[in-house]
């Protein structure tokens, strides 16, 4: 019976006239990217909310980082307490410690006409904000995913920096007025690709994340982070980031980076 059944099933299919596949794969990829983008934005928002709730009592002004000196990989191992202060009991390694800064930018969010942000504009801005160094491996996320990445080498070896932008709700086209940005700094001991994560949350819902890696590959050796905490905070808190950006930045980005590798 089984051979007959097998033959019947195959003949059943061969007698069909299936409609064309069409752009089935393309549609699946577009859906997947849209879902991935929403998931990323939700993660950024949820992370900021969780961290803000956990550290409400620790709103600090100013940063403990040392300007001009890159923190070593061991610092990116997640211990923010002074070395002389013993840790009270075991700490789950997956739980990143965090501190939040409230920064008065002193400037308004970029004015002028605004356009939908592009990855090229983000890379253009990022290259302006980074300290001097050789920039390589520039890449952008697929489609409208506002995430960019590059390696920065100031002479002590390349380090990876990623910047992502999202929004916790609809953003008005108008640039908001005098701003205070809430910046959260976390060290991720179990993820060297995001050794240090700096999240900046603007009152209008704009969310900016800067990842400073302490390796170039999860399986590879540790590397020096490309930015100090100070530098990462300055990048994240720049008022020009957003899901909409100044039109001149968008134009300059398109001119400087007409095509870029898409990250996987």
């Amino acid at each position: 019976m089984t051979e007959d059944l097998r033959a019947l099933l195959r003949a059943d299919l061969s007698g069909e006239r299936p409609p064309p596949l069409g752009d089935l794969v393309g549609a699946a990829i577009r859906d997947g990217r849209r879902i991935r983008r929403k998931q990323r934005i939700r993660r950024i928002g949820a992370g900021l909310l969780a961290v803000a709730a956990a550290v409400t009592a620790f709103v600090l002004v100013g940063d403990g980082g040392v300007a001009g000196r890159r923190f070593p990989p061991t610092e990116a191992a997640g211990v923010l307490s002074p070395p002389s202060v013993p840790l009270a009991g075991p700490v789950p390694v997956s739980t990143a410690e965090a501190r939040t800064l409230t920064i008065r930018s002193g400037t308004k969010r970029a004015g002028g006409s605004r356009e939908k942000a592009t990855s090229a504009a983000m890379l253009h801005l990022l290259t302006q904000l980074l300290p001097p160094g050789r920039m390589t491996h520039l890449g952008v996320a697929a489609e409208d995913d506002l995430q960019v990445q590059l390696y920065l080498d100031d002479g002590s070896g390349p380090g990876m920096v990623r910047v992502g932008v999202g929004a916790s709700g609809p953003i008005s086209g108008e640039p908001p007025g005098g701003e205070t940005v809430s910046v959260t700094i976390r060290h991720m001991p179990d993820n060297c690709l995001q050794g240090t994560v700096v999240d900046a949350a603007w009152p209008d819902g704009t969310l900016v994340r800067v990842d400073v890696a302490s390796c170039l590959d999860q399986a590879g050796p540790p590397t020096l982070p490309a930015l100090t905490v100070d530098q990462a905070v300055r990048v994240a808190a720049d008022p020009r980031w957003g899901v909409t950006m100044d039109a001149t930045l968008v134009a300059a980005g398109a001119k400087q980076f007409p095509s870029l590798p898409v990250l996987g």
Partner: protein
Amino acid sequence: MTEDDEFAEFANAHAERLRNTAFMLCHDWHLAQDLTQTTLTKLFLSWRRAIQADNLVAYAQKILLRSYLDHRRRRSSTESTPGVLHEPAYRENPELRLTMLDALAGLPARDRAIVILRYFEDYSVEQVADVLEIPVSVVKSQTRRSLGKLRELLAADQLALFA
């Protein structure tokens, strides 16, 4: 080549096979198309994990089967028997095909999936058990029961085929 490119290459190479399997499960090309797109979207989202699998095609088939079974659970009371809507495959004996489709459609969703995987996809009992995440013994017993049910459902003059 980026991961997206790798996914696109795999998806383009296997989309038709996935859709064929989906069609054999549901006998509705439009639904098969939807199930395949859902499968590929889920595969895209889990691509990094998927490429660690020993058999990527089986991994995709597993997603497809899950999508189909989920769909059946949601719409179990409304699905019609679609065999009568299709062009005859057995031109020399259209009645036979119709009866076969009816018989397959009469099986519960999971049992139909077992039959399709075993006898259309040529999966081993162990592979079917792995894809559906059920014990091998269940696959064997359900296969026996399904074949018995097919015999009952098919017309008496077609039983000779299954002697």
